[in-house]
């Protein structure tokens, strides 16, 4: 039996029927939210905005027809998941949450006229604009490195996709006893424990297939999150700290910062001037706010976009919200989970403005997981509050290093569970 519009109205009420209709059929006067960027922040905002408010018109401007989830993509490197498993489309946003998705690149904001201009020449009008462009990489921070090299034989693989597969191929086809160099960036960057998780996963694979290979982590920081946990695990599994260590870590205090890449010689040059030749070089460059934020003047001369810490309205224009990695929201870390929490809060701010309801005091959460192996997981939870005109950390709960193998394994299964349920939260 086919339902016509009248049947739908009878069954579910007017709200459901209007949701099922294309945007043009809805009231022309509906307020408009335009979201630039369909990553975790943008998609979460579109979904939760719709859950809160059925009348608002939501438009997402995102050039890619698919999104590849970054959390969980290190697992591609040791064959645990495939890129396909991490790939989602915008169909759910379109059909379940009634958002219009324009598959073009946003290029400009007309602040005075309340329009976003797209690469296809469209002028998209907005009442509120939310910008969630993610980060971009500062290739020039490492002399000799470039976007072209990253797309070739020196992938950073810090955005899940072809580079992830390239990196996997490179390190898995290395000569016996080959060396992988991972250059870890300075803070702040997306997903702080990921370089060390990456090294651990690679080591697990190499231990089985290329047991004399080595992974050298050259770090631009003196320490890193979950350091004690990782070092425990590495000692246990990869001889960390011995002469036969499969993983070595050199912090910035020992001259670990990578300053230069000599691609022809497959060599990196550190702050100490040491030249290190490696078979696979994985430079994770430092980051700053995405290009769109710079092109539209939102960054106001800084590396990240300054925002009002209460409601994430940009300092440049109060009708423009900025969320996710691009926003300067210290002390919040740059994770997808934080981006999704900012999105849920911004949805409440906009809903409050539409209905006159006070959204109250925000509670933001960062729930983050990492793994060292399939038998060793870690979790961290931070909660943030708005207090005294700024964002403050309320509480941090972190998985302390444990020698209880049962607990470590349980944490790994929690980490896996987190990945699945988080993906579903944002894209289902």
């Amino acid at each position, binding site marked *: 039996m086919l339902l016509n519009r009248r049947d739908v109205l009878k069954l579910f009420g007017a709200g459901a029927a209007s949701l099922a209709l294309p945007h043009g059929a809805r009231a022309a006067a509906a307020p408009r939210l335009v979201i630039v960027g369909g990553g975790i922040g943008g998609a979460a905002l579109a979904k939760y905005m719709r859950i809160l408010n059925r009348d608002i018109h939501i438009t997402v401007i995102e050039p890619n027809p698919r999104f590849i989830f970054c959390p969980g993509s290190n697992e591609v490197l040791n064959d645990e998941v495939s890129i396909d498993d991490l790939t989602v489309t915008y169909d759910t946003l379109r059909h379940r949450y009634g958002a219009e998705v324009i598959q073009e690149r946003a290029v400009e904001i007309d602040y005075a006229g309340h329009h976003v201009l797209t690469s296809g020449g469209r002028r998209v009008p907005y009442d509120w604009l939310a910008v969630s462009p993610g980060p971009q990489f500062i290739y020039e921070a490492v002399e000799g490195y470039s976007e072209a090299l990253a797309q070739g034989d020196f992938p950073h693989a810090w955005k899940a996709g072809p580079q992830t597969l390239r990196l996997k191929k490179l390190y898995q086809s290395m000569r016996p006893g080959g060396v992988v160099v991972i250059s870890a960036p300075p803070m702040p960057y997306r997903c702080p424990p990921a370089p060390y998780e990456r090294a651990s996963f690679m080591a697990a694979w190499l231990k089985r297939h290329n047991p004399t290979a080595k992974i050298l982590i050259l770090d631009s920081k003196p320490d890193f999150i979950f350091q004690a946990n990782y070092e425990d695990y590495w000692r246990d599994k990869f001889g960390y700290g011995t002469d036969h260590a499969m993983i070595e870590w050199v912090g910035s205090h020992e001259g670990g910062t990578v300053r230069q890449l000599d691609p022809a010689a497959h060599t990196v040059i550190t702050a100490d001037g040491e030249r290190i030749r490696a078979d696979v070089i994985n430079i994770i460059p430092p980051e700053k706010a995405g290009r769109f934020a710079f092109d539209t003047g939102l960054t106001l001369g800084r590396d990240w976009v300054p925002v009002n810490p209460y409601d994430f309205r940009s300092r440049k224009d109060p009708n423009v919200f900025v969320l996710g990695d691009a926003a300067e929201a210290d002390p919040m870390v740059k994770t997808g989970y934080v981006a999704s929490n900012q999105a849920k809060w911004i949805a409440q701010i906009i809903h409050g403005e539409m209905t006159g309801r006070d959204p109250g005091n925000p509670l933001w959460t960062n729930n983050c997981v990492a793994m060292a192996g399939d038998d060793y997981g870690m979790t961290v939870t931070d909660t943030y509050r708005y207090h005294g005109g700024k964002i403050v950390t309320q509480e941090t709960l972190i998985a302390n290093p444990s020698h209880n193998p*049962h607990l470590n394994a*349980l944490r790994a*299964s929690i980490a896996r569970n987190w990945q699945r349920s988080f993906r579903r939260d944002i894209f289902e």
Partner: protein
Amino acid sequence: MKKTLTGLMICVLCLPAGHAGETTPSIREWTPAAWYETMRLKPAGDATRGARLAKVGYCYTCHGDQGVAPSRNAPSLAAQNETYLYKTLLDFRSRLWWADHKDDGMHALARTFTKQDLADLAAYYATRKLPTIRKVKKGDVHTEKLVRFGDPSRLVTSCAACHGAHGEGGVNEVPRIEGQSYLYLKRQLTLFKEGRRHNDVGAGMRFVTEALSEDELDRLARYYANGQK
């Protein structure tokens, strides 16, 4: 020869594809011979040691202190058949019992224990006491019939034949089912019927549940849950 080869290849193609993103290595199902050998070689369990393992293994977070589950999310283990507990842990460890992500936690944990540990845990939980559950209303006539007599017309053995007159468990690995939560029993029966749980020796439970309707399974789950939601 050529024919055989083609046949083999077709068979390989027929194998059910695993869940997207889940690597499901093919694990051999229990044959009666393999299971009897495993039972024969089962280490003797030490309940005192098991108590300690249940603590460091965080078993109590889901299965409750003393093995009485505090929620419907996990089964109670108190007074469960020791051999069944041992076998279940082995099956989680080998991933033979892996119906969906809800079993990830058990898989991850069971892998961290030795066979001796598993036997000790089984001994510990088997010797815990299950609180007395007030008897509630009996099932309807049809359900009672299935429980006591089965249904010979569909080759369905009665539940009581293996699980005991009151569902208290039987010989070998046959578990106690009385007093588990309705939700848990219903899920297990459904998983058997769909073949997603396939760690039953000789496919016994799968054979029975396949013949029964969803409604019958639902009533049986309620019957044995005895008022436990």
